[in-house]
């Protein structure tokens, strides 16, 4: 039997079909990768915003008092934890203690309300990379002191604010964290904004509208231990 080569029609059909398959495949792949990048960016924004709010809420809920203190027009949220609170950072490791429970009372008032006393002062504030309170910037910092003075560089909880206690911010996509107080009703309203860019924009080919911005607001009460 004589060997037979492809005909021209067969070759053209093969090239056309291959082109179509490649086109569909590449388009699908590109679409999927884009969606993946967008989803990643969206997830990062949502995750970091909620993580910030969760961790601040955790502290506010176990506080006996919360105030806003400003230096150079840059405000800080000062939360005075209950004396028995486990929400302060472990001094040795600079990491948070794994304690879900709220603080136990120290004494009981005549009406049966829990008295807690004052524990650590936990601060949250936006600042620059130095973490000095009073600076302006997009880094969220946590600091802890045992008195009411403003936090110094030594009071920063590096393990909370940074990866591996130094280097980049733990919440790099956070672009804003604002708060306000209702002292009468003893609650804090706070808003966190996260904005994460997806790959095309990072490489300069995307537009600003391609970023994934997520905003969440919460109102959290601190302890109503007397009424």
């Amino acid at each position: 039997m004589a060997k037979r080569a492809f005909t021209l029609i067969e070759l053209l059909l093969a090239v056309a079909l291959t082109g179509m398959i490649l086109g569909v495949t590449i388009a699908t792949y590109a679409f999927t990768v884009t969606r993946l990048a967008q989803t990643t960016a969206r997830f990062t924004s949502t995750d970091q915003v909620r993580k910030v709010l969760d961790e601040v809420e955790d502290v506010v809920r176990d506080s006996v008092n919360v105030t806003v203190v400003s230096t150079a027009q840059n405000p800080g949220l000062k939360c005075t934890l209950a004396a028995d609170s486990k929400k302060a950072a472990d001094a040795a490791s600079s990491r948070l203690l794994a304690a879900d429970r709220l603080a136990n009372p120290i004494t009981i008032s005549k009406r049966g309300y829990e008295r807690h006393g004052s524990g650590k002062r936990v601060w949250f504030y936006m600042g620059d990379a130095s973490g000095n309170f009073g600076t302006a910037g997009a880094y969220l910092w946590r600091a802890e002191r045992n008195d009411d003075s403003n936090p110094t560089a030594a009071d920063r909880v590096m393990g909370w604010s940074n990866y591996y206690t130094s280097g980049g911010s733990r919440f790099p996509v956070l672009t804003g964290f604002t708060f306000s107080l209702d002292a009468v009703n003893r609650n804090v309203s706070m808003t966190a904004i996260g904005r994460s860019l997806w790959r095309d924009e990072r490489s300069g080919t995307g537009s600003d509208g391609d970023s994934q911005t997520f905003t969440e607001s919460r109102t959290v009460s601190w302890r109503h231990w007397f009424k």
Partner: protein
Amino acid sequence: MRSRRQRGSVMLFVLVMVGMMTVAILATVELTTSAAILQNKREASAKTRLAFEGAVNRALTEIRDGKSSVPDQRSYQIGDLDVKIDVTDNGASMAKTYKIVGTTVFAGREYIFERIVGNRQNPTPFAYAVFVNENFDPKKSITINGDMVVNGSIASRTFPFNVSGDLESSGTTLSFTASVGANTMLGASKVNMPTVSSLPYITAALVTWATGTVTNIVFGAGAEPKLIYRLGDVTIGGTVSGNGTIYVDGNVTIGSNLSYTSASDRLVVIATGKITVGAAATSFVGHYFTPTEFVTNATTNNLTKGSIVSQKLTLNGAIQVTHDSYFWDDPTEGAKYRLPGMWP
């Protein structure tokens, strides 16, 4: 017919493409699933925690209102969650507290919470160092080692006003600076001032005082507090031996210093009329109840161990009160001493 090499190339091409797409799709699905799981966990945590707080408040309210007792196990439906609550007395670890453990199941996962909370009972006036049942004008210096409650407003004065414990007032403002060691509670609900009737005391008293002046009060031996009845005004002073209650159908004057002879002595004075601290009585002891007025006339009036429960408190001299928390620590003793509101 394709050669083996041709078929292999096509197969390889298809496999690479399918593999790349599979990886991309799986990554997207994984990321989305992770985000959903994380969000669900946060929602579950917040939801169960809030349900537990709601159940705790309901349990405390029912205990306070006498609808349940301790220890107690019950379930509350909070929204769509069933929260099982286990309330036990935590008094051995901390007086007047309960330990509340709540368990609830959400999305197949069990959540357990625990809290130590106060026993939110309506307090007796004797739980405080000083109880005043109307507006209070602190027109002299006042120092309270304990808690103070005013069923009314506190007038603005410049005299020192020091309370080491809680300062509670049903008034909504405090327009002067008070030094308060614990909490200042404004707009507080009023603590009930008990009424008193002479008849049960007349019936129960085994001793009556015939004279209007008694120096050195002797209740006699025995742990059980004694009850003395006096019809008419009386002036007391000197020392107190033993423990018991003096019920006076009239006014009481503390004419001179009054002190205990031993640490276990305890005096309760219940008067239907006014109780006055005379100018010579700079130091005195005891728990005092009057539905009319408690008046201080000495330059310094130091109640070194006791409490004052009065409709009105008039300060013509500075007052210092150190609370004797005996009836707060053990309310059953209140009935033994026949305190208004606890007896008969």
